[in-house]
């Protein structure tokens, strides 16, 4: 279309600029939606509790939970529970992830090891580690170590399976390159298999992290005298639901935090992606 002077009515640059601006607005509104959704839920919850639509005894308003959080935080009890749980998570996580990676790499690289170990992994994997908790407690007592073992047991499986898959997913040509250029078994392990499997391995570790949180709460509910799970369980039994919610929200917060940390770490240690 042209106006009387013969100029195009639509300047192509302007058109594209408008288009670009629209895209920017769209992007920003997507970010906004991500922030809005949890706030909206909390707001609805707050209103429903305060107006009595939700029973305040079972669903205390978020504002009350927040003030309970500060009460618990100031009297120091909360930090004991949190630090105990975090210690168990960290120790159990490492105790599961490290053997998971080592065994996974060996299974991925050496077919005989893979064929020997994979039936054991497949048979043990469906058993919830929590169902083994009674046995674990018999062996390791009700102290920290039994929780650490429980978490390690749950974290191990996704890590080992993803590590094997990661090694098997390495492009054959990269293995050929290593062989052609005379890589020693040690170089093959550290320069090819480990970094090559890393992206898929990290997905397993991400999964393991989520499972570690699920496991710690349940394990502490069943046989512990401290920890976030213990806090949730005892608060529930004493019908102190605000305290229970504080525990639940802490778990949710740490899950979120760990996911973000791992994702940040992923960018650092897999920079070639």
């Amino acid at each position, binding site marked *: 279309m042209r106006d009387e002077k013969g100029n195009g009515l639509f300047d192509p640059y302007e058109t594209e600029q408008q288009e670009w601006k629209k895209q920017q607005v769209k992007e920003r509104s997507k970010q906004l939606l991500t922030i809005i959704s949890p706030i909206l839920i909390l707001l609805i919850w707050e209103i429903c509790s305060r107006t009595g639509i939700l029973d305040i005894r079972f669903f205390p308003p978020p504002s009350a939970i927040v003030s309970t959080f500060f009460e618990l935080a100031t009297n120091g009890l909360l930090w004991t529970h949190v630090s105990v749980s975090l210690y168990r998570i960290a120790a159990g996580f490492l105790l599961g992830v490290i053997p998971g990676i080592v065994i996974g790499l060996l299974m991925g690289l050496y077919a005989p090891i893979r064929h020997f170990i994979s039936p054991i992994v497949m048979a043990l994997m469906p058993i919830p580690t929590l169902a083994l908790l009674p046995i674990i407690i018999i062996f390791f007592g009700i102290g920290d170590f039994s929780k650490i073992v429980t978490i390690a047991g749950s974290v191990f499986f996704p890590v080992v399976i993803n590590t094997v898959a990661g090694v098997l997913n390495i492009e054959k040509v990269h293995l*050929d390159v290593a062989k052609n250029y005379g890589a020693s078994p040690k170089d093959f392990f550290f*320069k090819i298999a480990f970094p*090559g499997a890393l992206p898929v391995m990290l997905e397993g570790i991400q999964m393991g992290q989520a499972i570690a949180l699920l496991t710690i709460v349940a394990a502490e509910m069943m046989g512990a005298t401290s920890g976030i799970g213990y806090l949730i369980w005892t608060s529930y039994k004493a019908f102190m639901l605000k305290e229970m919610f504080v525990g639940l929200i802490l778990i949710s917060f740490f899950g979120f935090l760990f996911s973000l940390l791992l994702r940040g770490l992923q960018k650092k240690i897999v920079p070639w992606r």
Partner: protein
Amino acid sequence: MSNEVKISIEDLTKVFYKKNNSVTAFKNVSLEVKEGEFVCLVGPSGCGKTTLLRILAGLEHPSSGQFSISADSDFRPLQSMVFQEKGVIPWLTVEENVAFGLNMRHLPKEFIRKQTDIYLKKVGLRNFSKLYPNELSGGMKQRISIARAFANDPEILLMDEPFAALDEQNKFILQEELLSIWSETKKTVLFITHSIDEALLLSDRIVLMSAHPGKIVHEIKVPIPRPRTMEQVRANAEMAEQFITIWNHLQQEVQRSRG
């Protein structure tokens, strides 16, 4: 080019055995390549040329027959291969990729650094040395692959269609770059391609293979003096004739394997 035989292949046969049907990749292949000679193996897909190269590269075992690569120096590795497009390792930087062979041989760090630097410069990747291959174009990646093989300073170089995945313009540029690096080192090269033009430009001798099973059917000397350029080869009337000869051979082969 000297008269010393560098690569000697005697009666090599490769059979891929599977339950109920076995496929003969190539049968009774014999070939000699002289020291400093650039030989192109040309043939339709399925003629076993890649398998032949992989055997020389130590990645497969021959079913029967033997081959030998004569070594001038104990220090050098026998062979290094330039792989097809995906041969660069994505988790190593450009520099680490070029240094790969040297690192695998655990040579002194200072030597590796110097040698890597020389070849990074030769292929024009010095400013990209800290980047990862995925940040580079296909042509750049193949430059890494070529630099890695030359930097390793092997007795012979094996090249498996290194430019097959590149666009036409990049292919021309890389072919000429390869020629210029090669002319400085005069390595013995066995190069696989299905492009007749590429073979005419690069090689001293073209070996034609047929398919099902792979066999050597014809050999052609390429008498154009070096250094060569793309324009020269294209303008040379004799080369146009050679092209037709090679094409006729290959065409027959392709038709035959179709029918």
